[in-house]
């Protein structure tokens, strides 16, 4: 299972704080890239694509910032969020 999380404005826009996916639902591989994960999500929820494309979205895999070519595997936690504004 892959745990997917959305935060802050992105969470509000998608109206979704997160979801769990089985990696087998995504591909017949044991690992896939973030890019492919996004393609899968955009395919399921067509409106999400423009939400992602109209702003800067950061990606963290297991709490570390990564790029879209990063490979994820079963058990990973993938988070998507806008630029941070704490402090």
């Amino acid at each position, binding site marked *: 299972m892959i745990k997917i999380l959305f935060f*802050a404005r992105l969470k509000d826009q998608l109206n979704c704080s997160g979801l769990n996916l089985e990696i087998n639902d995504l591909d017949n591989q044991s690992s896939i890239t973030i890019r492919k994960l996004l393609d899968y999500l955009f395919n399921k929820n067509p409106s999400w694509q423009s939400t992602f494309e109209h702003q800067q979205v950061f990606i*963290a895999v297991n709490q570390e910032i990564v790029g879209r070519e990063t490979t994820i595997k079963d058990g990973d936690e993938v988070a998507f969020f*806008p630029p941070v504004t*704490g402090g």
Partner: protein
Amino acid sequence: MINIHIQEADFDHSELYNGLRSANTPPGAVVTFTGLVRDFSSHGDVQAIYLEHYPAMTEKTLHKIAVTAQERWQLENIVIVHRVGKITAREQIVFVGVASLHRKEAFQACEYIMDYLKNDAPFWKKEITPTHELWVENKKSDSEALDKWR
């Protein structure tokens, strides 16, 4: 020693300062930064802010920033406290305190930690005005602030 706290409750500045002062090697310099909720912004009057965060990532990120500061400068104590949830105007949001043998190290490490916290720690701020609730945009000056540490 590194102490990091993420909490909804307000913090006691005086207690944090006293903690920084007490170290095995008594420090010669303590620098503290405190961030407070301003009561206005480009959106108008601000009554409060709401701070969301990514709990699993927040402490990990702050710890990493503190460890990097400790490798870069000779520091006795580092304390980071960041509040989450709803915070009323004029209240405290964040505290970063550093104790060191020397003044320059304490100033640099404290500012370094705040600069990286602002850019890397997964907190998001929403401003609550009398009429709106608006997510705060990130500032270019915050990412530019990192240039001096590279």
